[in-house]
């Protein structure tokens, strides 16, 4: 279905958290203040690599208005952080490894005083060689940045015998691709408020993608029990992976505890650029061979990722890139090796797409080049080589089977943009040249276009893993209750950074309980109030929230309907939830529901069903049926399916009111109406490190206009088709794909955090160029493929990343068609696209 407001019906809803955003009333965590609070500032290294010879903070400490100065000596616990491997000093002891490394921090009565105090801190450095190139880092005589050396992580995938297979290839394409150090550029920079409480606890109000993980890391730094810390982590002014790791939290926490006063930190943009994570720049060599008929035979890949000074999630990012370097294709002989290398260039880490963007750009580039060598249509070439539905995953692991790949390929083939490309080719119009047929096309009169304006259309494909992958703890869960205020309350440890999680949950709850939005309470982003349900990363929260609710709804409904029966005398079977309270079911009338809602319920029943649908391998069932633990009532996976037919139709919403939720809760024991579930995100049963089980599929087509006088590339049209299961929240879905797409446009054409000798040259938004509304065109289409195989138990898949992973290769293919240039470096170097204006090479040259 082409997604837009008109096609969405009632599911197009104003966001629950929207009003306070459009009025400016919403207090972001960086807007918060507290009585008597201090302002914190962090002193960061001025050298990308140096030894700290001496550090003197006495002048700063003595300055009037300065309340505290902290250094590594003030860290009571582990002076390190890092989600996967804690190797980054909160406050450096004797060495700095990048320009954002923190050495000291100050709390003072005003921001100006705190800033001034930083200038009073005296640091003596001994400058060391700056490693700016990962290849230099790998040389034997390079300085070693960490005790284990300069290699963070290596990956390797070998299938068949690539060396031998290359010898038998009819065509081989070799290319080296490079991708930029993209910045998340969330509009709200890092910051927060840190409040020491009178009961000896600490409250941290600071955005993050996983409050519990921050709590664990902060506790480790403070040497505290985790429970003494409360982390409030939503709402967030954008993250895209960038706020997943700790940023200002160590300094805020330590300063608040040292001073006993609330401390506020809010990074300036410059500091955010200097200290914050970026996307891993990767150098990807690919060598890919096909036989005479165009079948892929051999594929060799070498990935070098610049992970910067510290680990954070650099290793999983490389795993992900490696897994995605083979694309959704059948290749008998594969030889992929990846290496993630420490340098003194900032810190690279988690970023929407998680290494997929880089690998997919390279792999799809190979596919287009091979198709061209063969003289085959690029889409046909992909169809010839695509994986078959029953093939194992890219790492030969068992994966959950869907038809997503075939569906998106077919949808793209039939899209207007691709049809337009075909029509032009069929008409024998030379790629890149302009044609009259287009004058009728969306008002794009091109008849009068000058010869240096050239157009082309390209497409690309993505198969993108969701969840953290095999071998990484990936807990999920949630809580459903009727709260003291008489509201149906869900609580998850997921975060709202704009993606629309709250809106999606509201729609899920209305689907399940036919209640009014005012009957609902949604609790997220507060470790004191939500259960452990894992992180909001890796496109996982929508699926996890949905699966958790599928598990929780049955015992929850059973409990509240039984309670209503007890109070009203009406048998529970005749009751249902609805607007305002428990209502009498309208007789066995016919069921009129929006199709998507009934689909959801159908899948819900299956998810809870204990019977194994015959075509589903046993272990695939196991992964999502383990550990359903429900407090308050005995319930298990085996009886969980029974109650689902209690949700019958949306007319339930308005049947005769039997008892309001408030009345019901007033006469019940609250703890009998609370249900928890814990489970794991579905992972592949095969022991393949980082291997995924659930994949989402997307195909993207783009039309560009290249100006060969200036080298400028303009995007004219984009088409995204995504197979991610039922669309719960169409507004959110479109927003994620459009937002991801435009972010990928920046990755492709303009964005790069340029570094010189370990220093950022692009320090703010004036030189770091993200797309503006001028770069956007009116014809971005999003087509959602909603159907899943019968009995698919995982429901809607997350789409937070998939919109951003495949646009770059579609654009570079379009550039090739328009201007005849193969682009291998991103952002696209404009100078590569500038061409002489049809002036003969010899012109102006005359013999003497």
């Amino acid at each position, binding site marked *: 279905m082409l997604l837009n407001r008109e096609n969405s019906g009632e599911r197009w809803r104003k966001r629950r958290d929207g009003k306070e955003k459009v009025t400016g009333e919403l207090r972001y965590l960086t807007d918060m203040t507290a009585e008597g609070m201090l302002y914190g500032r962090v002193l960061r290294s001025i050298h990308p690599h140096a030894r700290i010879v001496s550090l003197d903070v006495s002048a700063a400490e003595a300055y009037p208005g300065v309340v505290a100065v902290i250094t590594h000596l003030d860290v009571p616990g582990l002076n390190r952080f890092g989600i996967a491997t804690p190797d980054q000093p909160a406050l450096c002891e004797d060495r700095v490894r990048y320009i954002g490394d923190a050495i000291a921090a100050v709390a003072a009565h005003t921001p100006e005083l705190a800033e001034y105090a930083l200038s009073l801190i005296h640091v003596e450095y001994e400058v060391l060689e700056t490693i700016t190139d990962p290849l230099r880092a790998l040389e034997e005589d390079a300085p070693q940045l960490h005790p284990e050396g300069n290699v963070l992580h290596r990956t390797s995938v070998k299938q068949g015998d690539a060396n031998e297979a290359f010898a038998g290839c009819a065509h081989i394409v070799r290319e080296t691709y490079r991708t930029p150090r993209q910045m998340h550029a969330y509009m709200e920079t890092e910051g927060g408020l840190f409040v020491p409480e009178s009961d000896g606890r600490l409250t941290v109000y600071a955005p993050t993608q996983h409050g519990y993980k921050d709590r664990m890391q902060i506790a480790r730094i403070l040497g505290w029990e985790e429970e003494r810390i409360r982390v409030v982590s939503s709402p967030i002014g954008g993250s895209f992976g960038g706020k997943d790791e700790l940023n200002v939290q160590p300094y805020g926490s330590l300063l608040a505890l040292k001073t006993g006063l609330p401390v506020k930190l809010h990074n300036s943009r410059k500091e955010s650029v200097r200290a914050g994570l970026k996307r891993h720049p990767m150098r990807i060599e690919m060598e890919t061979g096909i036989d005479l008929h165009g079948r892929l035979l051999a594929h060799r890949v070498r990935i070098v990722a610049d992970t910067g000074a510290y680990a954070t999630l650099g290793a999983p990012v490389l795993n992900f890139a490696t897994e995605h370097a083979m694309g959704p294709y059948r290749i008998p002989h594969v030889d992929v090796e990846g290496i993630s290398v420490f340098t003194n260039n900032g810190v690279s880490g988690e970023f929407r797409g998680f290494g997929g963007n880089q690998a997919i750009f390279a792999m799809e580039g190979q596919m287009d080049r091979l198709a061209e060598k063969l003289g085959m249509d690029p889409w046909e070439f992909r169809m010839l080589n695509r994986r078959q539905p029953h093939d194992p995953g890219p790492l030969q692991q068992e994966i959950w089977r869907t038809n997503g790949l075939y569906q998106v390929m077919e949808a793209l083939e039939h899209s207007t943009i691709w049809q337009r490309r075909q029509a032009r080719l069929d008409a024998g119009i030379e790629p890149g040249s302009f044609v009259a047929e287009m004058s009728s096309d969306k008002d794009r009169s091109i008849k009068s276009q000058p010869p240096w304006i050239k157009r082309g259309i390209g497409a690309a494909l993505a198969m993108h893993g969701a969840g953290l992958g095999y071998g990484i703890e990936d807990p999920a869960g949630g809580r459903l209750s009727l709260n003291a205020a008489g509201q149906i309350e869900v609580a998850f440890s997921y975060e709202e950074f704009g993606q629309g999680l709250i809106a999606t949950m509201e729609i899920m709850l209305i689907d399940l309980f036919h209640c009014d939005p005012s009957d609902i309470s949604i609790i997220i982003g507060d470790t004191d109030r939500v259960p452990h349900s894992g992180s909001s990363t890796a496109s996982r929260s929508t699926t996890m929230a949905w699966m958790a609710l599928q598990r929780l709804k049955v015992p929850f409904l059973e409990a509240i309907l039984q309670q209503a029966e007890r109070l009203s005398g009406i048998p529970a079977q005749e009751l249902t939830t609805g607007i305002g309270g428990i209502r009498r079911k309208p007789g066995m009338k016919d069921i009129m529901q929006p199709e998507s809602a009934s689909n959801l319920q159908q899948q819900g029943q299956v998810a809870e069903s204990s019977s194994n649908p015959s075509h589903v391998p046993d272990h695939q069932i196991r992964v999502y049926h383990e550990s359903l633990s429900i407090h308050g009532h005995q319930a298990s996976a085996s009886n969980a399916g029974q109650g689902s037919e209690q949700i019958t139709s949306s007319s339930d919403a308005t049947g005769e009111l039997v008892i309001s939720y408030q009345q019901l809760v007033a006469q019940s024991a609250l703890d009998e109406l609370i249900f928890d579930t814990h489970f794991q995100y579905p992972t592949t049963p095969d022991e393949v490190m980082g291997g995924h089980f659930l994949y989402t599929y997307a195909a993207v087509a783009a039309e560009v206009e290249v100006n060969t006088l200036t080298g400028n590339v303009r995007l004219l049209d984009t088409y995204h088709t995504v197979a991610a299961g039922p669309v719960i929240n169409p507004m959110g879905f479109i927003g994620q794909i459009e937002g991801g797409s435009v972010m990928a446009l920046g990755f492709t054409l303009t964005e790069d955090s340029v570094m010189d000798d370990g220093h950022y040259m692009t320090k703010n*938004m004036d030189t770091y160029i993200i797309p503006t509304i001028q770069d956007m065109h009116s014809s971005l289409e999003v087509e959602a493929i909603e159907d899943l195989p019968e009995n698919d138990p995982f429901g809607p898949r997350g789409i937070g990343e998939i919109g951003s992973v495949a646009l770059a290769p579609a654009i570079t293919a379009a550039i090739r068609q328009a201007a005849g240039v193969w682009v291998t470096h991103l952002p696209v170097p404009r100078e590569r696209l500038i061409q002489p204006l049809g002036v003969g090479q010899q012109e102006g040259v005359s013999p003497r």
Partner: protein
Amino acid sequence: MNRASMNWNATINGKERELEVEPSRRLLDVLRTDLELTGTKVSCEIGRCGACMVLIDGEPVNSCLTMAYQCQGKDITTIEGLHGDKPAELHPIQEAFLEEGGFQCGYCTPGMIISTKALLDRNEQPDEHTIKEALCGNLCRCTGYGGIMRAVESAAVKCKTRTEEPSVAE
């Protein structure tokens, strides 16, 4: 640190305000810190992103680049002042952003809405080109601008209806 303060006054969202501030204090800080009007956002502090956009005498201005003395005695409107006397009732532009999904994280939204207000006050029926020109100083990292474009187009229709039939909304 002891620079001379001035007795600064301005009309902010229809109310007379008076403060002791340094003449060079940024309007952004006056609003966010001194007056706790945190609807105006801070992001780049160099006039590039528009998160801090306010109206000064009806003109859209980046408050991070405006010093107190420069807006002495002026009429300043921030996002908090857009819905006029009836706080419960949203301005049609705000309504349009809500209906069309013209925001996600919402951090760019106040500035975006202020710039839209300035645009629609000047031009009731802006075409695509004019909208893009008016909003290209407002960066949004979340939406990809699709929802924003739709919201502004719909806001234009709403605002026009409102001026034509004042009884409907007032």
